[in-house]
């Protein structure tokens, strides 16, 4: 299959555009998505192709337009809602948590909500604490929604196409820090199913589980650790809900050690969920309790050195791996 190197943001745009060409019910709505060409240029050019009826600029009114999109989804359209940052989704918390994931259940299966919410998630750009939310920990708790968190352009396109075709509400967590990263993406159409993790690096001594940007931190740490003779297996979960448990468990049974790397705060996070599941289902295969590496339990700071220290950076990952493999 011929491939070309494109940026993460282009991959997402391609996914949205392909789906919009195919299905007229799909439309994009959000702040600055149309005439501004996207606050982060993800939707560049889409207004020209699809027109203002399908690429819709909204006022700054997250609660309003998220609710509007959900109402449209109930009727049968397939909206893609862009939050300029997932930090702003908190303003729309009621519709996205109380309406979207619960509609199918409360209506006894009559009205679904085939909607995709997408936007930038995570810290690392010195944006200050109100703009640096990692919402996966907040929203993973809710049944009825799905969460996808790609770490590279190839995954971004495949997961986005699956998200748009999925009949359930999907929270698609991108990252401002990843938008410019390039990878090889096929020209032909492809999908990546939810609940299927990818093994980014094979190894024998420890299993690292992560999603999104922290996967890149894991890969960096794995390089460092390889020089110390520790061989890491890096698993990119790709989706948090649903989670590919089989791949994780098979890996832990092989390596007998597990470290989960999650950029959200540690208390009651997706990282703790993985740790709990691994501890339960791989109990007899563990050589050391499962360790987690999270962002420090503080609001995201502005100062660059503090922010870099706060993140689940490769240094912290290496420390955890050394602990878990008893190579202190």
């Amino acid at each position: 299959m011929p491939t070309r190197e494109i940026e993460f943001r282009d991959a997402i745009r391609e996914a949205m555009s392909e789906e919009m060409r195919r299905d007229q019910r799909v439309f994009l709505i959000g702040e600055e998505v149309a005439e501004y060409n996207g606050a982060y240029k993800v939707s560049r050019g889409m207004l020209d192709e699809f027109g203002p009826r399908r690429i819709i600029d909204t006022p700054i009114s997250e609660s309003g337009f998220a609710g509007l999109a959900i109402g449209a989804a109930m009727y049968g359209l397939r909206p893609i809602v862009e939050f300029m940052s997932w930090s702003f989704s908190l303003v729309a918390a009621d519709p996205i948590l109380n309406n979207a994931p619960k509609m199918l259940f409360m209506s006894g299966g009559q009205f679904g909500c085939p909607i995709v919410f997408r936007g930038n998630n995570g810290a690392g750009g010195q944006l200050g604490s109100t703009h640096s939310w990692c919402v996966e920990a907040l929203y993973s708790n809710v049944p009825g929604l799905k969460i996808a968190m790609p770490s590279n352009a190839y995954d971004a396109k495949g997961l986005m196409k699956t998200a748009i075709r999925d009949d359930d509400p999907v929270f698609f967590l991108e990252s401002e820090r990843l938008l410019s990263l390039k990878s090889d993406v096929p020209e032909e159409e492809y999908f990546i199913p939810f609940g299927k993790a990818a093994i980014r690096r094979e190894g024998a001594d420890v299993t690292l589980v992560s999603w999104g940007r922290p996967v890149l931190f894991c890969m960096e740490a794995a390089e460092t650790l390889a020089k110390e003779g520790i061989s890491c297996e890096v698993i990119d979960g790709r989706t948090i809900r649903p989670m590919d448990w089989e791949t994780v468990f098979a890996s832990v049974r092989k390596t007998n050690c597990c470290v989960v790397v999650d950029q959200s705060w540690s208390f009651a996070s997706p990282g703790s969920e993985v740790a709990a599941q691994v501890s339960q289902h791989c109990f007899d295969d563990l050589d050391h309790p499962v360790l987690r590496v999270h962002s420090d339990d503080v609001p995201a700071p502005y100062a660059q050195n503090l922010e870099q220290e706060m993140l689940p950076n490769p240094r912290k990952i290496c420390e955890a791996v050394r602990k878990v493999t008893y190579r202190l």
Partner: protein
Amino acid sequence: MQAYQDKKIGGFCHVYIGQEAVAVGCVAALEPRDPLVTAYRDHGHALARGMHPKHCMAEMFGKIGGCAKGKGGSMHMFDKANNLFGGHGIVGAQCPLGAGLAFATKYQDEVINSGKSDCVTLCFLGDGALNQGALHEAMNLAGLLDLPVIYVVENNGYSMGTAIERGTTMAHKITSKAVGYGIEGLEVNGMDVVDVYVAMKDLIDRCRATSRPAFVDMRTYRYKGHSMSDPRKYRGREEEERYEVEDPIGKLEKLVKDKNYATPAEIEAIYDGVKTLVRESIAWADASPVPSLDELYHDVYVEKWGPYTGTSLPQMLTEKP
């Protein structure tokens, strides 16, 4: 109400008694294809839209025969066949949904079918929702995007226990709120079903043609408390009695009698018929079984979701590709 007191209905139950003219008049002015969405005081709207009382009753009883298989309850009446989009518990949450439904019908008519927008969405809310941000964001969007949605405020003067003057600015003229968004406002006597119908028919036709939003201050009154647990200490008995004289059903009955649209015997038969229907519905709902435990995991996702209580794995039960 009786059923609630018999503990057949659990949780919250917000009865519509006294406001019937609003639902009946409005729905009569709508076409079946027009979407309707409302808040949690939704029994009237459900019945008016065409839901059989037995499904409504069964839903409140929490039985599988309910319109939402017993999983929604009194506050969440949904009826896809009759274009009833709920039944929503959070005050004001249905307002953006209403805008979204209008958006969707217009999109379907104009973008997908390349025609002209031909639907109107009715979004009901209480006067309490006037203070929620969601309504204002929705009105702003509706005005901006020319959405054919009519916000019908069932203004019964109370948000739970708070009289409207205590909670809302411009309480004496709430249509001024719509004017602020460039939206036409209308005041209607909600205690007379004919008044309601005449006013709404005209408004709905106009909105259908112009694809513009509208706002209606529907003056009405609820005879009972906000919900079953409300002892109504915030108002006096005289006030309630005053409004009971205005009872919309009584008014309609009087109108029918005066104009000889039906004989007293026919009217009697109607009442009897309704009583029978209600009794049958209760019996049917009683007989309807409770949802199977399996039902707990249906409709969480479109695919079948696996049982997860914390000791097993949260995962889809369908085969993965």
